[in-house]
């Protein structure tokens, strides 16, 4: 059977990781390639790079990091952040990314997702959705790292993006991101029930039980986390062992 995926995410700025695992045997803790190799060795099912480079001129640093990672890690790599044009996607895929995630650009122009899926195939087009609760049962899409509201309903948006050809939804709760309080399970469940494509839950993981809840209660196909892996709180292997013990099927 298909296994739930555990996906560590690295924030990359100007080609360097912003937060990184502090292992003593690391030659260069800020090198995303070194971090990727650690996660690879620990049994991560995929890797995710989120580029937060502010200036467009420094974008080449990202392509270089992707290229070097793809040369050494033979596992799926998703790259997101600042993906705005078909040419951005093409360059990332050529550098070695397997999937690209589109966020703000999809909100600005939803047809961009359809164009990208037609051009490169749905299998490599991920739509990243940043959502915040707006009421007991309402969720709204935010852009610009959660600072800008759009008035768009998150569930309707996820359905529309899947309809436009997104092969996967990467769902982040902006209420939970960085809190360590766990995924927003209600949000995850609503989106997972609304679309037929895989849904990756993100934002808020503080304990290994949160990973279990994301799959079991949230219905997510995969779980993404940054801090608990970055800071060495848990290894990927520990996360998987915990999930397996809780009855979630994972790749050993």
């Amino acid at each position, binding site marked *: *059977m*298909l*296994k*739930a*995926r555990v996906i560590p995410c690295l924030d990359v700025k100007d080609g360097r990781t912003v937060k990184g695992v502090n292992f003593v045997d690391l030659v260069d803790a800020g090198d995303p390639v070194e971090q990727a190799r650690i996660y*690879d060795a620990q049994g991560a*099912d995929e890797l995710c790079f989120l580029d937060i480079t502010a200036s467009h001129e420094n974008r080449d640093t990202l392509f270089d990091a992707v*290229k070097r990672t*793809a*040369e050494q890690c*033979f*596992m*799926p790599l998703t790259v997101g952040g600042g993906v705005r044009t078909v040419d951005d996607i093409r360059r990332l*895929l*050529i*550098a*070695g*990314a*397997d999937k690209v995630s589109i966020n703000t650009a999809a909100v600005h122009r939803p047809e961009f997702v359809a164009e990208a899926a037609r051009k*490169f*195939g*749905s*299998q*490599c087009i991920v739509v990243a959705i940043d959502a915040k609760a707006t009421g007991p049962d309402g969720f709204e899409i935010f852009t610009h790292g959660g600072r800008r509201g759009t008035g768009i309903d998150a569930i309707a948006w996820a359905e529309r993006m899947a309809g436009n050809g997104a*092969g*996967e939804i990467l769902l982040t709760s902006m209420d939970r991101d960085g809190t360590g309080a766990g995924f927003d399970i209600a949000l995850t469940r609503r989106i997972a029930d609304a679309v*037929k*494509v*895989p849904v990756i839950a993100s934002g808020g993981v503080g304990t290994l039980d949160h990973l279990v809840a994301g799959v079991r209660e949230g219905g997510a*196909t*995969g779980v993404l986390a940054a801090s608990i892996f970055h800071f060495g709180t848990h290894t990927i292997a520990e996360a998987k062992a915990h999930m397996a013990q809780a009855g979630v099927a994972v*790749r*050993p």
Partner: protein
Amino acid sequence: MTVAIVDYGSGNLRSAAKAFERAAADAPGRPRVEVTADAAALTRARHIVLPGVGAFVDCMTGLSRLPGMVEALRERAEAGVPLLGICVGMQLMATTGEEHGVHAGLGWVPGRVVPIPSAGGELRIPHMGWNEVEPCREHPVLAGIASGTHAYFVHSYTMVPDDPGDVLAVTDYGGRISAVIGRDNVLGTQFHPEKSQRVGLALISRFLAWRP
């Protein structure tokens, strides 16, 4: 002698090339990995790889646009050169593909490429992630793939060979679907060996050592 990876504009060949380079460094004769769009390059290849991502018809169109490539591939396949198709590259070996209409494939392994039966809408499509490979026939390239070995899949369509004997391994996604197909010197994996970490690299190594 070389390992030729056919470049017909389908997605990213970099990771495939790197994985084959890694495996080729330890392969007999240390063959050079050549990513090529030139049909003539196939004549010096000891192994040929046909990758593919995206839609069946787009891949078939891309392949057909390369002058002489389809003919060269057919000629090499008939000459007994080991040939590996990956994902849609495997699906192209079928007689027809039924994604966005019915389209002719290369026809090397008689069969059809059809949507993954979605079990009454229960399944998420694409089938994306790590799933278990269950070998159902012996094959030198699959030696060492124990039942339950995980590989990385990402696809919405599945190949159904006319002769069940052409299915070398299956995976379970709402039922048994083809994971590896093969006939004579032609082999195809629905999963991505270049993305399947050491399991995938080991399969690539065995492919490069294969002399059918």
